[in-house]
């Protein structure tokens, strides 16, 4: 699920975002206050996260800056196990006295809840890693780039979009920096500095006579990178049919806005789709969301076990299917990997929010379901001794829980470009970009739209289509996977604000894939007359 844009923190002046956080030695002393206070109150396990979360969000429309949000959030979250039950409390008062009191509150909550608990929490062991640190390998810290330079970029994006036929345009930049200090009674003291970036826009076209309007969103991807993502390097551009461009690890926002304005005008007069079965050629900037919803979420072990039953739902990928070691999630071409390590991704960190080092593991191997995503209090259920390291909290005041790592479809081993792939399609649709999306609570039945749809007839693109959405069943869909482009076409899609949990928390996650072909998928027409 994708949440609305959350601002977590207090508005501050932009230069405050450049101030260094508290020294690591001070944080260690404060963390020890929490660990000792909880232990003396009866906690058998404690972890503490001292977090400084920085955000800069910029919103513009046409030639106006609508809003610039500079936010800082600083505080401490303490999680304890007492009598086999979790307790959690948080405070923005980062002083030894307040931290000790907060630890007592967490213990009191655990004790109150222990009365209604019958099954004690069991944590997979994690050896302490001592005092360590990790940083996102950025080249340009986005928070150090002057606000005026960023405003100038967005104004250029907007003016090019308007010049090329857009009636309206909004453009945004989102920058996030998580400065997280984690300590636990296992003996870990982990300092991390994590950066993320998301440039995006929407161009609208309006026909005032007919009252018809259309939009085209950016085909950028949010990334675990610094401002260098906006360099627009030619070497990172992947040419595609009809003048389309795929962006790998460098994005040309002005070029994409110019293309978007031309394409959104074309959308106003595009042919409405004839419903039926089509072979779909799905661009990575579209397929990433399908992977997210139909593979990422159903392989979350907490969903499989029922911990999310009241909100996000459960999963069709049940333990009995996994235990057969032969459950055909997809065709033999389908190899899907989970990781917290791929460079430039939103999921890349050194350690998760319960002190587990980052890993990579298979979820689907040669089409067969082989594993899940699990954290310390669940992994024993699938017979493993170590957590996968995918526990995350979106703020110091949120409790950490299982969140999706990067989940990516491996590229094909045969040499193949998107041009080669389209040549082989008789009746198909080439889909680019993220559109409307919906999937049931066990992840069987889904419906996806997109930003751009092109009709393919006898190996050629014949024109743009409108009113396209495809409906399928997860297992049927992945078993219809017929062809993959190679590693030169492999790119990231990202979700910057993925929502899960109660109270709802956001997380950021990437999904890599090559352009991929799926045969005989059901396409519906979404046009209506009112």
């Amino acid at each position, binding site marked *: 699920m994708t949440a609305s844009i959350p601002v977590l923190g207090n508005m501050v002046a932009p230069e405050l975002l450049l101030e260094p956080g508290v020294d690591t030695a001070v944080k260690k002393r404060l963390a020890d206050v929490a660990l000792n206070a909880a232990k003396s109150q009866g906690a058998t396990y404690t972890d503490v996260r001292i977090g400084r979360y920085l955000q800069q969000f910029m919103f513009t429309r046409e030639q*106006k800056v609508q809003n610039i949000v500079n936010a800082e959030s600083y505080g401490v979250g303490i999680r304890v196990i007492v009598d086999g039950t979790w307790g959690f409390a948080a405070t923005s008062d980062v002083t030894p006295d307040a931290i000790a009191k907060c630890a007592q509150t967490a213990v009191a909550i655990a004790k109150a809840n222990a009365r209604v608990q019958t*099954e004690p929490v069991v944590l997979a062991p994690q050896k302490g890693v001592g005092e360590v640190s990790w940083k996102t390998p950025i080249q340009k810290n986005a928070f150090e780039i002057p606000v005026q330079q960023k405003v100038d970029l967005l104004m250029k994006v907007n003016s090019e979009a308007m010049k090329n036929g857009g009636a309206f345009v909004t453009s945004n930049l989102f920058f996030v920096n998580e400065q997280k200090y984690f300590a636990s009674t296992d003996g870990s003291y982990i300092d991390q500095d994590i950066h993320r970036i998301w440039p995006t826009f929407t161009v609208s076209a309006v026909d*005032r006579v007919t009252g018809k*309007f259309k939009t085209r969103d950016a085909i950028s991807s949010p990334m675990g990178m610094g401002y260098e993502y906006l360099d627009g390097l030619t070497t990172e551009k992947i040419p595609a049919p009809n003048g389309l461009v795929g962006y790998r690890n460098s994005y040309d926002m002005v070029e994409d806005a110019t293309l978007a304005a031309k394409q959104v005008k074309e959308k106003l007069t595009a042919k409405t789709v004839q419903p039926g079965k089509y072979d779909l050629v799905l661009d990575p900037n579209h397929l990433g969301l399908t992977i997210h919803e139909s593979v990422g979420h159903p392989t979350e072990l907490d969903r499989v076990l*029922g911990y999310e039953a009241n909100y996000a739902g459960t999963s*069709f990928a049940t333990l009995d299917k996994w235990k057969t070691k032969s459950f055909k999630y997809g065709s033999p071409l389908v190899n899907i990997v989970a990781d917290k390590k791929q460079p430039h991704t939103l999921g890349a960190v050194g350690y998760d929010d319960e002190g587990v080092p980052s890993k990579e593991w298979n979820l689907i191997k040669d089409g067969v379901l082989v594993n899940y995503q699990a954290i310390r209090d669940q992994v024993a259920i699938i017979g493993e001794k170590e957590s996968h390291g995918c526990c995350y909290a979106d703020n110091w*005041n949120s409790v950490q829980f299982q969140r999706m790592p990067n989940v990516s479809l491996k590229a094909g081993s045969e040499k193949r470009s998107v041009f080669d792939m389209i040549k082989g399609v008789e009746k198909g649709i080439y889909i680019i970009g993220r559109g409307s999306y919906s999937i049931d609570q066990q992840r069987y039945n889904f*419906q996806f739209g997109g930003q751009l749809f092109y009709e393919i007839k006898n190996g050629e693109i014949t024109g743009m289509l409108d009113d396209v*959405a495809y409906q399928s069943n997860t297992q049927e869909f992945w078993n219809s996977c017929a062809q993959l482009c190679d590693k030169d076409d492999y790119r990231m899609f990202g979700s910057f604000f993925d929502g899960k949990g109660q109270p709802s928390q956001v997380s950021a996650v990437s999904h890599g894939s090559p352009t991929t072909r799926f045969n005989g998928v059901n396409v519906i027409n979404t046009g209506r007359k*009112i």
Partner: protein
Amino acid sequence: MAIILTESEAKALLQKVLSYSKADECEVNLLGEERGNLRYARNEVSTSGSLINKNLVVQSAFGKKVGVATIDEFDDASLEKVVRRSEELAQLAPENPEYVGVLGPQQYMKSNGFFDSTATVTPDKRAEAVDKSLQLSRAAKLTAAGFLEDQYGYNAMMNSKGLFAYYPSTNVNFTLTVRTPDSKGSGYVARGYSDVSKLDTAAATQIAMQKAQGSAEARAIEPGKYTVILEPTAAVVLLENIFYNMDARSADEGRSYFSKSGGKSRLGDKIVDERVTIYSDPANADLPASPWSGDGRPQEKTMWIEKGVVKNLSYSRYWAQKQGKKAVPNPNNIIMTGGTASLEDMIKSTQRGILVTKLWYIREVDPQTILLTGLTRDGTFYIENGKIKFPVKNFRFNESPVIMLNNLETLGKPERVLSTESNQSYLIPPMKIREFTFTSLSDAV
């Protein structure tokens, strides 16, 4: 200083903040809140937490140059610092052509959304309420996953033109999903109140348990167009997409359902059945809401759709000034009038139809027609000759709430309901709709 300030404490603090101001105009918003929650799944407590939050936002303006700064420390030095910082930001900012200045003093309606009962909930009380629910699901050998969250807080504002506003409120939300052990049946209930003494977790749990047991062994029937009875929990997640689109500027700019051919908006047009009336009223006792908006505009009783006709769209103060219209703010609550029919009456009068108790993962497919997609969930039932015959497998639908309200058969008695999509509460009736479009089947339970 306490987290939750009384009206006089808030007034004194805001006056002190304004006394530091050297700007042409200054406006200060203040909030404080305490939240507590308890989550459970697989009939066991899973996570829980507590959170306190206080915040002061200062907006300073020199002409049309505006700066905003925020702080969560309220000592004198911090208060002066945040005012200076907002003034520095304003001096550096480009002119905002859409800045229209702050409002003078306003008169607000009376609305009581604060209840001591909710403000005094403790971790022990939360655990007790959840225990009542767990005892029932455990005894019936059903599996429960639920979430209880209470909140107590206040908002206040003051500006250099003499406007002052204060509103304390409390809220509690309880949601619960109960499943059969074989995962063949699932039932849901959601309850939201300002006054926690109205929350009966045991009674709510009974409803979810009945739906879980009743929905097991669902049969597949063909997708297509059906008469549906939507319980309020199902109806509200469709209707709120109409409310989201009622912004005058988007309509005037030609990029909303509320725009129409020829460059005009649908303001004044009849868009749905004449039995549909939707309004907002902060003083409604069943759904109290703040009588003022964040920019100090009064929330009045406002008709949005009356007898099927669009009566108002919401305007920013800038857009209203530009268009020469009244600056009607976005509503703080939404109430839809209904009839007198009970859900049972509506079932009895149905020859062939589907009872939908909850909808899930609602997304807009086409903003031009507010076409939405999503699925039924946690209890869907086939009705024949006035009786529920059997549970049916879940459907995906593609339908517009505008088309739906043109195909209206009956409206029932409105009740307070919590949206499972937005977490907002509304007063909405159950409704019977003909020709509702289901497009495919789902195996999900």
